[in-house]
């Protein structure tokens, strides 16, 4: 009789709990309920008791990046690799009448030409075709030689044109994705109550605020290298925020099983929300590779990047708001238009989350134009909503003659902000601000402003981490997560090193590869709070597993009581070095697997920014003097990189407030500035003094992401500082000299 396999005793199922966590879909956070094991292990401990974390650690990939040795997707070159190039539609709305690639195909070095799977193009820049050739120069020649004839159709590329009755239709009338140019998306509150509240107010402000369409301007353009030569597997080198968003889509295009496709990203040159999935450029790269049975590198050109990879949606907000003399913000009516081009756009609902307003009513609309779809961009929807709200708050404060700081505090229910705003006001010396907007003599006027922001930054349970210790004492931590330049590698090493009483240099990481442990996409500031608990869990389990092996050598000390510190392992009155300890491990060493623990992370951060600017009322030019931001985030994993990220947020906020805008030609329907010559980024000459301040009064012993939070508050702060300086309110970003001079003229304040 054959032997029956012995039934395994079923382990007691761990207790479960349901929690709500953010998941990122195309860069946008969505809250979902998940069930996780209800386990709580040792926590991070007090924020001020760490040996590595919450210190200033230089980034471990720094030496590679400063010496040109870091390899980005754009740097990959493979034998027999072809170069891809995209052909774009030059019209805002058109259909193809004739497509002739025969001449292009006959050109030397040209290996394949494919058409995009579209018949009708709804924005200028929409990809039409792609070519693969042996050099980038030849690919460019071939792209030019493709003949496309279009039937031009009517378009609307500005909000004012698209909202007019009888405006050209942007989207199809019916079917998926079909809707009117102006489509209501939401309604909140009761208008009669708001109107009744207005009647009780001492002051009313009605104002409209606009923010333009902005570009991510990742220095490394979108694209990928498809390493496929017709075999049964492929590797995709992708510049992506989501390593695990690549294999499935690429496999479909290549006709391979998903498990046969590996995605890898070792270093990537900026994403800011725009790099999830393979994108249409990735789809075309895969198709070219499949057709030619050759590796294909398709990196977009800078103009492609401006025209077809998405952008931050523009916004248009109409407010009516009422306050009482004591500063109570009693009533608000808001109409919000999200200008997402052919996409939906995003804008946080009003009143912006930081503030409490008595009675509120809002209507939210999508307003479509013939422009490429907005995509997620650092804190989707928040900068737009925050700028409008913070400007409005300022207008209300000045209208009733109240200090803008006091007015904000009066209407901020969360006391964390009070602590932060008081500190920031002290740091910048708020009391020396211009007492009268536009006051003072001479053409150079200085002013100050402030604003606040919030974000989630919690994690989810997608990260799986392995820590392996070799018998020689070497330690490797393997995570699938990509490092966007936020310092992921560095804190990953540090968590493991700190747990094992080692130094950062004693640990190496494997990262950014879909064959390593599963990981979430880096969107919604969810990476740190998703990854670090899993790393901590793996590191803790490693420590205990090593301790169990060592206990007999250390007077049978309890594994939990064995101390790992300063490169030594101590217990039972004895101490040995880490290397000696590891020699006691089995020949294969030891691997521990870490999973996410919800108790090591949380959601919800607070930040306050103050700005000081100087406005030249003769030229309208704004000179930023100082930007200061107080930001909390639970346990700062690495103070150095956290400060850098806050700096980065303030600088991008500066760009949005003063410089950046997509410029469209309403008649031609095209973007006039799809290049770094004409799209003005903040540069070295415009840098103010930047003061990133970590709010250490936040004693939460949890990890929370702050990347997106960092960009939000400085926009309103700079705008309000401009008003305080010159006395003219600019309600339409960016605050360029022409707008400032016009506003000064309107106010009768021209120099």
């Amino acid at each position, binding site marked *: 009789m054959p032997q029956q396999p012995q039934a395994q005793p079923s382990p007691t199922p761990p207790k479960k709990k349901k929690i709500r966590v953010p998941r990122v879909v195309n860069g946008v956070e969505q809250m979902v309920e998940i069930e996780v094991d209800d386990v709580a292990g040792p926590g991070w401990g007090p924020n001020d008791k760490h040996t590595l974390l919450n210190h200033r650690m*230089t*980034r471990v*990939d*720094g*030496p*590679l*990046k*400063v*010496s*040109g*040795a*870091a*390899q*980005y997707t*754009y*740097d990959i*070159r493979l034998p027999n690799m072809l*170069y891809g190039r995209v052909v774009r539609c030059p019209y805002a709305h058109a259909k193809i009448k004739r497509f002739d690639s025969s001449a292009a195909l006959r050109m030397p070095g040209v290996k394949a030409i494919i058409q995009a799977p579209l018949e009708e193009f709804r924005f200028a820049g929409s990809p039409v075709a792609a070519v693969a050739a042996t*050099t*980038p*120069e030849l690919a460019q020649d071939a792209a030019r030689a493709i003949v496309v004839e279009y039937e031009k159709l009517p378009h609307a590329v500005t909000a004012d044109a698209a909202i007019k009755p009888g405006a050209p239709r942007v989207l199809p009338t019916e079917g998926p994705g079909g809707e009117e140019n102006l489509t209501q998306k939401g309604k909140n509150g009761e208008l009669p109550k708001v109107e009744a509240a207005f009647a009780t107010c001492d002051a009313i402000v009605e104002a409209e605020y606009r923010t333009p369409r902005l570009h*991510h*301007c*990742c*220095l*490394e*353009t979108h694209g990928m290298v498809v390493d496929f030569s017709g075999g049964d597997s492929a590797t995709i080198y992708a510049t992506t925020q989501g390593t695990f968003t690549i294999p499935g889509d690429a496999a479909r295009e290549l006709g391979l099983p998903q498990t046969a496709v590996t995605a890898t990203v070792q*270093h*990537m*040159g*900026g994403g*800011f929300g725009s790099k999830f999935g393979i994108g249409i450029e990735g789809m075309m790269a895969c198709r070219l590779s499949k057709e030619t049975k050759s590796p294909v590198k398709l*990196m977009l*050109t*800078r103009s492609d990047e401006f025209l077809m990879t998405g952008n931050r949606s523009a916004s248009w907000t109409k407010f009516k708001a009422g306050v009482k003399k004591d500063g109570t913000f009693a009533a608000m009516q808001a109409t919000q238009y999200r200008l997402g081009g052919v996409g939906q756009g995003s804008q946080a609902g009003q009143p912006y989350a930081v503030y409490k307003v008595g009675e509120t009513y809002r209507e939210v609309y999508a307003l479509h134009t013939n422009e490429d779809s907005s995509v997620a961009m650092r804190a989707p929807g928040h900068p737009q909503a925050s700028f409008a709200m913070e400007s409005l708050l300022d207008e209300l404060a000045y209208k009733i003659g109240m200090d803008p700081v006091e007015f904000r505090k009066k209407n901020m229910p969360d006391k964390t902000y009070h602590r932060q705003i008081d500190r920031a006001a002290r740091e910048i010396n708020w009391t020396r601000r211009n007492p009268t907007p536009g006051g003072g003599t001479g053409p150079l006027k200085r002013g100050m402003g402030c604003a606040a922001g919030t974000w989630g930054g919690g994690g989810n349970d997608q990260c799986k981490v392995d820590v392996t210790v070799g018998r020689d004492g070497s330690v490797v931590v393997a995570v699938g997560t990509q490092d*966007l*330049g*936020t310092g992921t590698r560095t804190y990953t090493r540090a968590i493991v090193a700190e747990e094992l009483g080692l130094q950062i240099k004693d640990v190496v990481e494997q990262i950014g590869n879909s064959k390593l442990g599963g990981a979430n996409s880096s969107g919604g500031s969810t990476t740190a709070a998703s990854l670090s608990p899993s790393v901590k869990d793996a590191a803790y389990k490693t420590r205990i597993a090593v301790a169990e092996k060592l206990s007999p050598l250390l007077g049978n000390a309890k594994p939990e009581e064995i101390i790992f510190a300063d490169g030594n392992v101590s217990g039972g009155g004895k101490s040995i070095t880490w290397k000696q300890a590891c020699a006691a491990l089995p020949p294969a060493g030891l691997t521990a697997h870490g999973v996410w623990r919800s108790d090591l992370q949380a959601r919800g951060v607070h930040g306050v920014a103050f700005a000081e600017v100087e406005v030249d009322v003769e030229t309208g030019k704004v000179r930023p003097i100082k930007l200061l931001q107080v930001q909390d985030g639970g346990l700062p994993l690495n103070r*150095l*990189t956290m*400060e*850098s*990220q806050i*700096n*980065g*947020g*303030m*600088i*991008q906020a500066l760009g949005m407030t003063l410089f950046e805008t997509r410029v469209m030609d309403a008649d031609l329907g095209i973007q006039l500035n799809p*290049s*770094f*010559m004409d799209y003005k*980024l*903040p*540069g*070295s*000459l415009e*840098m103010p*003094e*930047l003061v990133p301040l970590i709010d250490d009064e936040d004693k939460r012993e949890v990890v929370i992401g702050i990347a997106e939070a960092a960009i939000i508050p400085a926009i309103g702060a700079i705008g309000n500082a401009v008003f305080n300086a010159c006395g003219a309110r600019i309600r339409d970003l960016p605050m360029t000299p022409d707008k400032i001079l016009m506003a000064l003229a309107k106010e009768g304040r021209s120099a």
Partner: protein
Amino acid sequence: MSDEQDPKKKSSRYDPSRRKFLKGVGVAGAGAALADHFISPDKTVAASESVTTGEPIAGTVNIALDVNGAKRTVTVETRTTLLNALRNNLEPAVTGPKLVCDMGSCGACTVLMDGKNVYSCLVLAVDAVGKKLTTVEGFGSPEKMSAVQSAFVEHDGLMCGFCTPGFVTTISAYLKKNPNPSLDEVREACKGNFCRCGTYPRVFEAALAAAKAGVSV
């Protein structure tokens, strides 16, 4: 980048507008205009016939480039930029300098040509023959960083790192010229380099710290 790279101020052989023009007219025009630069000490340049006949050069030419102290032979088209030659044609590639704007506005492709910083996307590879080229790789390696490179790491003058090679190169060249700069001079020196992550303040700190350390490159 320093004033030498300001297109408004100079019309040298490496004038950006000139290269743009050449790129625009394509291979034939470029060849004729460039024929006089194809003289190379080791005679790897195969354009001598064109030089004598004045015929346009089409297709590819073999050239020798002096990159970080090594003589490198490479086949390029006459219109191939120095940046693309480094990244796409040299074997093995030199990928420290990055292609970002391809029009001389962002500085990510900055290299030194005979000690002067240039946008390598605005220089034709054939124009770099006979010049001493230094890329970011030429200043140091991850194991042996230069003072400027170490200062960038120490002061966290980088995030995604894609602009970093350009900044390191620009600042290394500038500190040679001005070993003791003020903050404003550093800002001015790197006004031709863009960063999107927002590393400027710490790039400035790194430059000043490297200068203070007294070793420029």
